[in-house]
């Protein structure tokens, strides 16, 4: 098939499926957290509350769109679009199966990290353009956190890249199918790199315990304080989408992507993604938030050195394999 046509078809398909999954993941999270808290969660809209996401979306669309008087109108309206754009952009290079991939870039991992890094901009734009002190504090925290956690994320992602000798996610998955999933093999660096990647992804996607930019109990709603209606909805959607796609990237980098017996590859990839996604929710509804200075010291005194050691270990393993 023509590469442009392939890209167009699959990007529309993947974007739509991911957005739908994101909407229902909010339903899933509400049910899941309800179970954890001895509640029942949504039950009214549809069977088992399954139509709740639609009701939520309709409600958000009906809300009045308010732009604060002293806000920077253009930037204020741009920020929610950008967050969604960047988080959807990551999905372009994630291989859901050997065929289901929008663009199999040779520099896939770099593209993912770059797109994830760009997420700092809309958040900061929103924080600055809102002209609100809570939003500004949230934006400040988001920038500090986003930039710091970029580094352990890159280092963790470098481990599979080093082992596979390629930056294309498809190649990384194929290498895992041949040599075993990186989370198990090589023993040690792979597993620790996966944990590091998971922690850094949580911070990158602003999930508890690292949801410091949002921090409802401190900063009201952080950068989204002044947003109403669907603009707020876009932020919300982008946050979940980012988490979902981070889970997909984690599954591709460390859990063998579409590799698995009995069922087509796509099933396995989706299953692994959702498992990681569920893990994020589990963590979210269990832990409390840590403080911004504790977050920074965790990053710079533990995660970055650990990442460096892991990259060295992966390189040594690769060198040893090549030597033998």
């Amino acid at each position, binding site marked *: 098939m023509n590469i442009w046509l392939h890209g167009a078809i699959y990007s529309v398909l993947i974007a739509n499926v991911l957005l739908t999954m994101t909407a229902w993941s909010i339903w899933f999270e509400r049910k899941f957290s309800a179970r954890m808290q001895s509640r029942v969660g949504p039950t009214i809209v549809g069977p088992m509350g399954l139509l709740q996401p639609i009701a939520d979306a309709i409600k958000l669309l009906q809300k009045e769109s308010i732009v604060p008087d002293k806000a920077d109108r253009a930037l204020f309206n741009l920020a929610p679009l950008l967050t969604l754009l960047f988080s959807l952009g990551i999905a372009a290079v994630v291989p859901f199966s050997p065929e289901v991939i929008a663009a199999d870039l040779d520099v896939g991992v770099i593209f993912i990290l770059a797109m994830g890094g760009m997420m700092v901009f809309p958040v900061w734009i929103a924080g600055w353009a809102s002209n609100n002190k809570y939003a500004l504090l949230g934006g400040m925290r988001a920038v500090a956190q986003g930039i710091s956690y970029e580094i352990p994320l890159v280092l963790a992602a470098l481990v599979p890249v080093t082992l596979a000798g390629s930056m294309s996610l498809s190649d990384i998955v194929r290498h895992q199918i041949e040599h075993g999933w990186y989370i198990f093999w090589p023993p040690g660096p792979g597993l620790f790199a996966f944990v590091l990647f998971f922690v850094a992804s949580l911070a990158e996607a602003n999930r508890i315990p690292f949801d410091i930019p949002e921090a409802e*109990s401190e900063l009201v709603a952080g950068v989204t304080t002044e947003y109403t209606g669907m603009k707020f909805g876009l932020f919300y959607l982008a946050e979940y989408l980012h988490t979902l796609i981070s889970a997909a990237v984690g599954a591709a980098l460390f859990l063998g992507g579409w590799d698995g017996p009995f069922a087509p590859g796509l099933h396995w990839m989706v299953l692994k993604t959702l498992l990681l996604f569920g893990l994020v929710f589990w963590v*979210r509804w269990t832990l409390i938030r*840590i*403080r911004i200075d504790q977050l920074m010291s965790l990053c710079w005194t533990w995660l970055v050195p650990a990442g460096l050691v892991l990259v060295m270990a992966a390189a040594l393993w690769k060198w040893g394999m090549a030597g033998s």
Partner: protein
Amino acid sequence: MKFSTATATVADPYLDISTYEADADLMVLNLGPQHPSTHGVFRIKLYLDGEVIVKAVPYPGFLHRGVEKLCEKLTYTMMTPIIDKNDYLSPMMNEQAINMAFEDLHGSAVPRRAKYLRTIFAELQRVASHLVWLGTFGVDLGGALGGGTTLFMHCFREREMILDLFEEVTGCRFHYNTHMVGGNRHDIPAKWAKGVHRVIGVIAERIDEYEILLTSNKMFVDRTKGVGVIDAELALSLGITGPILRAAGVDHDLRRDAPYHAYDEVDVRVAVETAGDCQARAIVRILEMRESLRIVGELIDNVPEGPINGYRPTKTPLQVKITKGQGYACLEGPRGELGTYVIAGGDNRGASPYRLKIRSPSLHAMSCLPYVLPGLTVSDTIATFGSLDPVMGEVDR
């Protein structure tokens, strides 16, 4: 008594305002009155250098309802329901506090059974109040959408059981209106003791889990240890009582030091910590819950038979008339010394007081904020404020 007469030697933060006002680099953040973590409506003006607080000025008063003034128009019997709304997390304590003062003036003796029931109610109420505190503290630390809410929901699950017990007695879950001058209004139903035993058994087990959380969870410890230290000197100079004072190492508890109700018949073991930080306050409250459950378990089987008040049953409200005198009575509420000062001989031919003053422990607790907050971050503000366990209804009255 172990009161110190030392006055505050801490620099008065209000005096330092001028030096900071000149500095244009500081950001002024109005935390509240509409803010998710101010436990109602409370405003703190924070002068921030980055995220670090340079100065904090609290502004209470957003929930002022004029209850004390209103009480001058109400009769002693009519006051109880409205006093319930002061400290809405422990309404029974409020009722007991005013009625103790009225009883002293009126000279009405409380039957022994009523004293026992009041003690049991007070201790159950203390557990319920501390459970709400623990839950909201979790939300303060962990966010309204996250692990904090899980703690919150679990604490409320336990509190519901206590409210169910109260509902069986009074018919109400929140504002009970069950105490009156000279005794109680409602007697406990048959087999209530059995329910109490079941509930305190369940809660005691779960409190053990919460204690593990407070002392061993790395994140919880990181967020609370060494944060918002209120030392004994500051606490005493500001009149802070209750768990905050005990967490600062001062062994003071009215239940033991100035017994009222039936506390002279039980052994009250007072929990004391020395660190004075958020974690110490949390641990003191956990230990207090456990002690309260023990006291309830001890008393519930020994409730003496007899009347619960000194009146014969009537359909119309009883009229209590006190023509002169003034007095103060206090008890150990969940937040500290909850006192009532009353000057008798007001309207309605002596059926209303001339003046009623409520000493609310929350107001005193919050007065430490300007001294404690500078140097902490915005996150720590929320943690410290939450650990004081303030109830705005009581602060502003």
